[in-house]
């Protein structure tokens, strides 16, 4: 197992909500990453973001781990929730907030600041 693979796994497993995206919340590089970011923010998710653009290997390793071919990818407590379309759909139906409550506890909107993890 490569070191990068382990670091990606650690983010997925350790962070309450992990968003693998193109760019950073400050400088989003793709409309789909933007859609996922906005849906998660609207739901008040305690976000950790990872920019996959600096190294193509991040994306390759991530997709091998998740079996999901596209970016963004959202994980809650280690489980893949989906990409931008699913985030928006779940947010619109209120199910995203229910899922966050179920998995993170009803106080998941605890004002924790967004965190950025670099894998470079």
């Amino acid at each position: 197992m490569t070191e990068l693979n382990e670091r990606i796994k650690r983010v997925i497993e350790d962070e309450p909500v992990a968003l693998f995206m193109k760019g950073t919340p400050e400088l989003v590089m793709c409309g789909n990453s933007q859609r996922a970011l906005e849906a998660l923010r609207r739901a008040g998710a305690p976000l950790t973001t990872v920019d996959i653009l600096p190294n193509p290997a991040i994306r390759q390793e991530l997709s091998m781990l998740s079996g999901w071919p596209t970016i963004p990818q959202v994980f809650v407590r280690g489980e893949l929730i989906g990409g931008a379309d699913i985030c928006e759909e779940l947010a619109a139906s209120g199910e995203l907030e229910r899922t966050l409550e179920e998995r993170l506890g009803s106080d998941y909107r605890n004002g924790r600041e967004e965190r950025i993890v670099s894998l470079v």
Partner: protein
Amino acid sequence: MLENADRARACQIETVTWGVGGYADSVERLEELLRAAFPDATELSVVDRTGTGDHFHVTVASPRLDGLSLVDQHRLVHDALGPPLHDGTIHELRITTKGVR
């Protein structure tokens, strides 16, 4: 602010590797792959969102999707579209899935 072209490049899934045929052919190819995977689909469409044969919105309603989570529904669509997802035909893919129950 980023130029649209920069964003479009960043959104690309893989390097472009055009096969023969025009844009309409890629819509047809995607439809064929989806029909093969969801032969009893009650709704199936492929929209070329940008008119450039590489940004698609696919919609599938099928009994095969009944009772599955959205993640698992989308996984079945990814599986059906494996070749164009991995050969660079598809730069961006939006998916809408529904069961029929």
